[in-house]
């Protein structure tokens, strides 16, 4: 299976990320030269389309190689320079990210009102995409900090994009303030890691924890145990903030609800997952089989449970549709955390599958709900009554998304939840499985309430007279694509699980392959 890639193919991950950034750099210049709305839209569509295609190609290359793809910037071997390491897990998430981003950009063409600031919106979308792909592909934990900051700052800005909206600006302020604190925490974590191990490379760090000799940075510098412990504590604070896990979930409902709808889909579906990805990468790939892995999985398990409960309880009390959807994100992140915390390979697979499924379903739910909200002009659930029945074109994908998130059998979220329960039972944790059933039931009632109000009940008097003219085609295409994917991921689980999910989750937990690939890459140089 081993094959030698050309340098062009090896460099694809770096090229995608840098190319996206460069095109984001050029967008204001293009706006300056050509003040046409369609030029900006076409440009960002083309750029994100190209990124999407290339990320699929990277996944194909990684699959064909059978081992992680390593690329070093500037030609420097790993501990010296920055490297990108793309394995199946990050490749898979990269594909999810770039595809959904592409659909979000298609959706925004129909959705966003055209004003003088529109080019800034698309610039920010491209920067977020570059940041997310960079976070996924990087193999250097200081670079991860920088990329995380790229994502964070552009998402703060995107939340405050409706600058006249009081709630949006306040939510962005809260998000930015505590988010910046969290990233400072991660920087402090880096200080501890660099202080104790003397390296900034993830594979090097993993080798240090496993006791493997790594060239150039020979041996550790300080006390590895306590250094790693402090690193883990601060790192978990930062990434639980980004992932909205329990103690740091408070910013999410406001921020995700107040943002423009495409941004909500992006934040809820993808940006939150970067935090989860980083936690998974550190806990499993870097820490490998060690005491610190045991400790942190336990913490994540507990946090996941609490998050699931809090998300479910917050969901039933919401009267605002977008806030409701945002709270459901907390619940689902809780599930993912539980899956990561179990630590068996089935649990990891369940988590991986849930990450993918939730990204797709949540994006679909936000995007379709956004169209409904745009028709009425209000986010209140009561005033949206019966709209799904009145406009079946939007109503059907909306219903699919709701049912999928509620966990109705043939759809995708049911499958990953089912895997999660199987994993809990398989690791002899039947009481835990029962405990986790409760938030599931609570959220099910909440979803059914929304489903009944919007899709079953007759429309309100005031909503009957609105015409069809508000429907637009560019916004409908991504919704249908996502809905079809939802169904396919549910039905085709027998095919998809062994095809990509299981290999991806297995490689996540395989430290030795990660270290050895990087070491071999150094020797090759």
């Amino acid at each position, binding site marked *: 299976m081993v094959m030698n890639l050309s340098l062009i193919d090896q460099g694809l991950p770096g090229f995608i990320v840098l190319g996206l950034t460069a095109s984001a750099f050029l967008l204001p210049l293009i706006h300056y030269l050509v003040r046409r709305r369609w030029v900006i839209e076409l440009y960002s569509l083309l750029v994100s389309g190209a990124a999407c295609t290339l990320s699929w190609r990277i996944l194909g290359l990684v699959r064909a190689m059978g081992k992680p793809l390593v690329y070093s910037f500037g030609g420097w071997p790993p501990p010296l320079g920055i490297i990108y390491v793309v394995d199946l897990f990050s490749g898979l998430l990269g594909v999810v990210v770039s595809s959904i981003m592409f659909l979000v950009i298609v959706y925004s063409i129909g959705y966003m009102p055209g004003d003088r600031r529109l080019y800034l919106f698309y610039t920010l979308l491209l920067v977020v995409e570059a940041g997310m792909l960079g976070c996924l592909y990087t193999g250097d934990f*200081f670079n991860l900090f920088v990329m995380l900051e790229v994502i964070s700052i552009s998402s703060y800005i995107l939340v405050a994009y409706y600058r006249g909206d*009081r709630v949006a*600006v306040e939510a962005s302020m809260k998000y930015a303030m*505590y988010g910046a604190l969290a990233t400072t925490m991660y920087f402090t974590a880096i*200080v501890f890691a660099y202080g104790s191990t003397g390296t900034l490379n993830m594979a090097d760090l993993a080798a240090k924890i496993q006791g493997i000799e790594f060239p150039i940075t020979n041996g550790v510098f300080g006390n590895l145990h306590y250094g790693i412990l402090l690193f883990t504590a601060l790192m978990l604070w930062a990434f639980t903030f980004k992932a909205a896990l329990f103690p740091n979930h408070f910013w999410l409902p406001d921020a995700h609800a107040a943002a423009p709808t495409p941004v909500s889909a992006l934040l809820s579906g993808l940006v939150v997952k970067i935090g989860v990805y980083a936690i998974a990468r550190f806990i499993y790939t870097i820490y490998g089989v060690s005491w610190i892995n045991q400790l942190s999985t336990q913490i994540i398990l507990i946090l996941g449970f609490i998050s699931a409960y809090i998300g479910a309880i917050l969901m039933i009390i919401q009267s605002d549709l977008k806030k409701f959807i945002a709270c459901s994100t907390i619940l689902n992140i809780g599930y993912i955390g539980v899956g990561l915390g179990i630590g068996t390979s089935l649990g990891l697979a369940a988590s991986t599958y849930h990450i993918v499924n939730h990204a797709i379903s949540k994006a679909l739910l936000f995007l379709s709900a956004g169209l409904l909200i745009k028709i009425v002009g209000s986010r209140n659930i009561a005033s949206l009554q019966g709209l799904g029945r009145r406009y079946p074109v939007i109503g059907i994908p909306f219903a699919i998304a709701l049912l999928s998130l509620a966990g109705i059998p043939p759809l995708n979220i049911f499958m990953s939840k089912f895997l999660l329960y199987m994993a809990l039972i398989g690791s002899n944790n039947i009481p835990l499985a029962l405990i986790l059933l409760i938030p599931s039931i609570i959220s099910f009632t909440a979803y059914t309430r929304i489903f009944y109000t919007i899709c079953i009940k007759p429309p309100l008097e005031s909503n009957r007279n609105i015409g069809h003219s508000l429907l637009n085609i560019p916004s409908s295409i991504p919704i249908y694509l996502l809905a079809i994917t939802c169904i396919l991921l549910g039905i085709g689980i027998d095919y998809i699980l062994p095809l990509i999910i299981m290999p991806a989750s297995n490689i996540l937990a395989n430290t030795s392959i990660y270290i050895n690939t990087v070491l071999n890459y150094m020797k090759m140089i």
Partner: protein
Amino acid sequence: MIEYLILYLYTSLFIIFAIAVYGVVVKPNIIKKIIALSIAGDTANTLIIFLGYRLIEYPKPPVLPTLNPSRGEINSFVKEAVDPIPQALVITAIVINLAVVAFLVFLSIQLYKLYGTLDHRKILVRRGVGSEA
């Protein structure tokens, strides 16, 4: 003696960091929060710069003072220069902090325009979330 000095510096840095975190969380005024945030960032920067210091008599900055060094010059330079990595990391971190703070300040101007105050408790009241307690 020098060990106690190092211990003192570490401890004071961490106490400042803790105070800054406290300030971000507790202070009601948003500008004060931003100041506390930048203090937190600067403390982390100072910490890593401090780690890279070299405890010898006259440490040198990591810059070779000549363009045509002899082998001996390079060798003595390696023995005297401080760790350059923290300095490079800190420049990155400073820029990032600065960017975040610039944006936050701009956002707080907008916030003031919308709410007429920068007190977090009053903002919550005017949004209809908190109470006037």
